């Protein structure tokens, strides 16, 4: 399934149910593993008011679509889902959802984690945090949501 890039707040649990209803056959899969990354309200002890998430639209979409296709194949999934925000994000809001549906739990767990690890390592997104003292780009060794 294609990955979804969103510039608005989303409810990951509603999206999982919507996706299941539209794309999965009840009784066919036995295992659903999901991960939600949420913006925290603190990072390196300084209060963060909000965050701006920049991306490279065409490449980000292309990268995540390929990642999903390849993940389904590698882990023999019924399906998977990736949703990722861009633009302005506030503390407590979901940033990313990964989900994997499979016959067996090992594949679902492994696939869900693989999606997150690959996405964090290679999907073209860049976080800029806005704090009381100004703005700063987040470096990948000091992310609020790790």
């Amino acid at each position: 399934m294609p990955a979804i890039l969103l510039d608005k707040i989303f409810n990951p649990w509603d999206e999982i149910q919507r996706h299941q209803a539209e794309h999965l056959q009840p009784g066919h899969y036995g295992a659903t593993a999901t991960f939600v990354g949420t913006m925290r309200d603190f990072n390196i002890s300084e209060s963060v008011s909000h965050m701006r998430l920049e991306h490279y639209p065409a490449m980000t979409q292309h990268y995540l679509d390929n990642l999903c296709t390849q993940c389904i194949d590698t882990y023999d999934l019924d399906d998977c889902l990736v949703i990722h925000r861009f633009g302005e994000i506030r503390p407590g809001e979901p940033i990313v959802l990964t989900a994997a549906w499979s016959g067996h739990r090992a594949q679902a767990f492994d696939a869900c984690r693989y999606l997150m690890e690959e996405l964090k390592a290679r999907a073209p997104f860049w976080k800029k945090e806005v704090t009381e003292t100004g703005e700063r780009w987040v470096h990948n060794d000091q992310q609020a949501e790790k």
Partner: protein
Amino acid sequence: MSITIQFFASLREQVGKQQATLPYEAPLDVSTVWTLSTDNMKMPDNTLCAVNMEYVKPDATVSDGDEVAFFPPVTGG
């Protein structure tokens, strides 16, 4: 024709522009595109390069009409 260059995030701020175009002239590789489009700036060590939405190394060949992108390590998720 020509090639399009895009800069993202902190690299966009360092280079001082988001986009550039260059006339195509063979042979051309990614690191030469960087040099030509940034007035000889040194490429930061951890810079990532992409051609037509795929990651490549700085010595990758660039063809006419390609979109070349430069950006810092990613921090999504």
